[in-house]
């Protein structure tokens, strides 16, 4: 039996569709949103769907859930190509293209134990060096690769 050409996922009434996620990153997006599956939300996850632009892509549809600014910023780091569609009554009422932030401020503590911010009890600011896929603490200068940085964010946010 051949592989079906189309995968039908029903429309959602109210909620969020995150489209054009780089293939294989859908579960990381769910982690950002703190979704483990036991919340009772109706969720559709499509992995490795065909994409004319990217070849393959992932899609996440979530019924009854909208994204905060903070969540959108972190999704932009993981999935810089993503588009976020807000759905109300089956219609797309807003379409947002994410753009990776240049700075992430006041979200997490610096992982460097000898960064002054750690000892002053303040959250630090990271500058995102997009060309090098690294994040840099603007105080101590510590640089962290993006994937590690995202992991630190998610851990510190308890996700």
């Amino acid at each position: 039996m051949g592989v079906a050409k189309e995968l039908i996922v029903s429309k959602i009434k109210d909620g969020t569709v995150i489209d054009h996620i780089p293939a294989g990153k859908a579960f990381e997006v769910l982690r950002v949103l703190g979704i483990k599956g036991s919340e009772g939300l109706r969720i559709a996850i499509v992995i490795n769907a065909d994409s004319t632009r990217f070849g393959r892509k992932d899609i996440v549809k979530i019924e009854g859930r909208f994204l905060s600014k903070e969540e959108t910023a972190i999704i932009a780091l993981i999935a810089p190509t993503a588009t976020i569609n807000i759905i109300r009554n089956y219609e797309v009422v807003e379409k947002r293209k994410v753009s990776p932030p240049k700075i992430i401020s006041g979200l997490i503590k610096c992982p460097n134990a000898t960064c002054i911010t750690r000892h002053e009890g303040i959250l630090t600011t990271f500058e995102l060096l997009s060309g090098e896929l690294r994040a840099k603490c603007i105080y101590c200068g510590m640089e962290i690769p993006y994937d590690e940085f995202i992991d630190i964010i998610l851990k510190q946010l308890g996700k």
Partner: protein
Amino acid sequence: MFSPVTTLLPQLYEKSFNILVVLDYGVLMNDLLAQFRHRDVISMLDFNRDELEFLFRLTDRMLDSINEYRDLLKGKVLAIAFFEPSTRTRLSFESAMLKLGGSVIGFSSEESTSVAKGERFSDTIRMLDSYADALVIRHRYEGSAKLAAEIAEHPVINAGDGRNEHPTQAMLDLYTLYRLKGGIERLSIGIIGDLKYARVVNSLLYGLTIFKPRKLYLISHPLLKLRDEVRRFISSKGLQFEEVFDVNEVISELDVLYVTRIQKERFPDPLEYEKVKGSYRVTADLVRRGKEDLLILHPLPRVDELDTSLDGTRHAGYFKQASFGVPLRSALLALILGGLTSGCS
């Protein structure tokens, strides 16, 4: 009587700042003076070539005739807040300020302050900011000077923040190369020692991305290699360098050997320190195999990495280097705290 609104700077330019002679230096000098005034000194990366050369020329001037500026900063107060021990940097800042007629307040250890009672760093900075016209800060944590500069209204000078930077040391290192070697671009420079934790190395390398030497060797034990972020940064700025583990391989090529101490106090693990302790030593025997005019520099203090038998030789530039700390810091304070004008509008 000497006027603080000095017109000596145009003479200074005509005398030694050749690069700018072809330009309308009066206007440019006003720009440079404005760029320095009330400025924080947090990282070497904040400075460009024109600004550093301008600082060096004023340092020449301070070195030759600091007496002419003896009332320049009269009535100004410099707060020196050293949360970490220091001899040269602290005393040279004090001397630099006093020679310009200013006053100094401050402390040189946490034990003698309310920090020992648990006072927050930011509260200490706020207090000093209200007492002084500028702050010089040394602290064991990276980013302390930057945070202080955000809190303080007055200019903050970084005199060393953890393993991060020590920009005024790098300024005086570069000045020493200008003064004793006549420039930097033609030099083959080796930097040996603790390239991982020595903040002076980071600041010096950032400075060398501006004044690119002909050849640069980074010489260290494998465990003391330059940190990745610094290596990546200097590479991105087009600074060519070679990393070597044995100074013997390159000693004959060097014009300058910059020696650093192993920063024992910054090792998170004492066992790591034990592995590298005594792993290099600059001796008379090594220097004999170098060029006739090999110049040895060291930011000091030294422990055992630089043999005292070299002190009396023509190669020893480190005491001269330390002596430039006062005129260079005088020049910097004069520029930051004002009082100098070009006499041009």
